[in-house]
């Protein structure tokens, strides 16, 4: 049994997905169509995928109903509207991250998914990383108890000026709707909420164009508070080199630290809370270390998506909770713009208005475009980088 898949938006990542399916690397998937608006790209695609139908318009592709499932890999802003149409016309959908640039209207999208009964996933490939999956399991199993604090220094998203010059949509309010939190760190924001839960308030300082000549943020420091009283810090930047990727999660029964390809679990034999109040003797500490391994997260997510459609397998990254990282991102911008602590759930309409103002003032200068990448393989930079 096999499902017919179309890729909408065949740039860097879209081409990698198309090639993986075309080459039979995903069981149960068959590439039936590609869609892109760029004439030059279309010519290149015809050559690379000679027996695959090519469309210029996603409407046409979706109305033709030739695919069972679509992969959306367009610029961020188009993700929700294409997803909505795809679901309404009976397609299963997997969208690249982020699910959207803003959350206004996402509830309608998720309702449509429920009504349609179709599978709707988001490409949050880092959830399949061995160490993050392990951390998720340890936390679910209660290994570190109730979470008290998390600190993620994720500053190894280094990008050069040349990178930002490589596409005129890059790092603009109009083209991307944000900077490091929207383009590079969604994976980390997602993993953060996946592992530690959703905060109920966000306070953030986002510095726009600090290290590069861009109008969006290339540095962010977020402080989050949670319902149970826990707190968290998230620091990201595209201007640090070599940068750091270190996540620490402390609970009342231990601590997990992920850094440089290792996960260190420190466990207490009892709760710190009980020791603090004198109920128990000082707990015994034990430590275990785990190592990361090479993997291809994108293929795992695509395989999971195929299996969900074919056999009802549970989704690793369903759209229903992919909205959370967008909420954290939006709340961080809003906090930085207003200087206020933002309570979640966010006032989505107010956020959209503020974003629109940013877009109105967007310089959107057409920069020199050097985009001529035609890698068919998944790039290493899309994996977890320690």
């Amino acid at each position, binding site marked *: 049994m096999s499902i017919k898949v179309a890729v909408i938006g065949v740039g860097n990542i879209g081409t990698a997905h198309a090639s993986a399916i075309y080459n039979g690397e995903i069981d149960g998937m068959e590439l039936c169509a590609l869609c892109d608006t760029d004439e030059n790209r279309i010519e290149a695609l015809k050559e690379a995928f000679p027996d695959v139908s090519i469309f210029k318009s996603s409407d046409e592709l979706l109305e033709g109903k030739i695919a069972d499932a679509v992969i959306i890999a367009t610029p961020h802003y188009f993700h929700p509207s294409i997803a909505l149409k795809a679901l309404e016309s009976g397609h299963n959908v997997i969208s690249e991250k982020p699910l959207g640039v803003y959350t206004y209207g996402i509830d309608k999208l998720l309702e449509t998914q429920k009504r349609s009964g179709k599978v709707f996933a988001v490409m949050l490939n880092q959830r399949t990383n061995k160490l993050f999956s392990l951390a998720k399991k340890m936390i679910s199993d209660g290994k570190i108890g109730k979470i008290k604090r998390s*600190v993620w220094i994720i*500053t190894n998203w280094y990008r050069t000026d*040349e990178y930002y010059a490589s596409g005129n949509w890059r790092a603009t309010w109009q083209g991307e709707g944000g900077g490091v939190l929207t383009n590079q760190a969604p994976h980390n924001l997602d993993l953060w909420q996946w592992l530690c839960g959703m905060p109920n308030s966000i306070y953030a300082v986002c510095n726009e164009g600090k290290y590069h000549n861009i109008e969006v943020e290339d540095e962010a*420091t977020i402080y989050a508070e949670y319902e149970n009283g826990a707190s968290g810090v998230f*620091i990201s930047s595209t201007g640090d080199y070599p*940068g750091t990727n270190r996540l620490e999660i*402390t609970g009342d029964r231990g601590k997990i*630290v992920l850094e440089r390809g290792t996960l260190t679990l420190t466990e207490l034999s009892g709760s710190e809370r009980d020791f603090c109040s004198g109920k128990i003797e000082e707990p015994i500490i034990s430590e275990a270390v785990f190592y990361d391994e090479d993997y291809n997260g994108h293929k795992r997510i695509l395989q999971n998506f195929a299996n969900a459609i074919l056999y009802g397998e549970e989704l690793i990254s369903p759209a229903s909770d992919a909205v959370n990282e967008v909420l954290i991102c939006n709340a961080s911008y809003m906090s930085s713009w207003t200087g206020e602590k933002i309570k979640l759930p966010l006032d989505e309409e107010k956020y959209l208005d503020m974003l629109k103002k940013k877009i109105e003032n967007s310089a959107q200068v057409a920069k020199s475009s050097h985009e001529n990448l035609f890698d068919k393989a998944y790039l290493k930079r899309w994996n977890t980088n320690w």
Partner: protein
Amino acid sequence: MKKIKLGILGIGNIGSVHTNNVLDGKCPNVELYAVCDLKEEKTAWVKEKLPSVKCFKNAEQMMDSGIDSIIICVPHYDHPKYAIMAMKKGLHTLVEKPAGVYTKQVLEMNKVADECNVKFALMMNQRTNCIYRKMREIVKSGEMGEIKRTSWIITDWYRPQAYYDSGDWRATWQGEGGGVLLNQCPHNLDLWQWICGMPTIVDTKMHYGKWHNIEVEDDVTAYVEYANGATGTFITTTGDTPGTNRFEITLEKGKLIAEGGKLLMWKSDITEKEFSRTNEIAFSSPEFKFSEVETDGENPQHAGILNNFADAILNDAKLIADGREGINGLTISNSMHMSSWLGKEIVVSELDSELFYDELMKRVATSKRKTEVKEGAEVNMGDSFR
């Protein structure tokens, strides 16, 4: 050999450490001439071990007894008062940390130090740690360029409730004037500014009695900015175990991490900015070398500071921690409290020491000394002075 004639004011936990250092022969240029404490039993054990020592219950009487130098180890609030008294009597003065509780009184103390021809030092024993000395040397040498980001997670100051219940003055506004920032963190705040310089803006989220039954702060997350645009975070608590002590500094040519008794360095020959400006490949990054930095391995701590103090008096050696510098760490600490109390970011140069004093006194006025103090509760201070 010439020796200083030292008097120790306050033979509590830390006063005993200094006393023992001298009695154990770790300070060859120091003669323990006199000790003073309100409680007779606190000085009796010193007399037993060192029959020649003069014991006092009154500070002024000890100051007039023929000593030429003094260590002030009384509760925080009284540090400036006794330091001023001692310096005015011409005594060389070494003050325990913190320099004081509020900057208003410390400014006064510094003014007196300027007027008196005596050595004035501060017990910043962590400045003798080889890791932090080396870190400072590298940063100050400029070989790695300017600082871009600092991040200190210093959450290994764990204290159970029994610690707080061991003295009625502990962790009260009236007795200590603050919590983790005033009691545990002065060293870290001092080292932070000693190595990275003073921040210009401080923005803090603080929790009072979050993990313990106390009225002062035991959980702090601070965000700071520096004059050159660099940013920093400082996270501390007495509620986490196992905690973390990880100090990371990102500079233009790499980064330094002090953790687990090691100093790690990632260094590039080119600044990130220069690389970003000149390279022409969108996804690329500078080469860097990784190394564990060698240090002299010496870490003489309290005895080291006392010996340096004696050396300064006898041979005019340069002080490791000039007393006047104590105001720096305290200014950061006061700015953090002020930010929390007023709910806004504080411009450090505009910290209003009068307003801070008034705000502090409001809290002192409603401060409750603890009633459930466990007299004689054993607190092992042996390894708490890090």
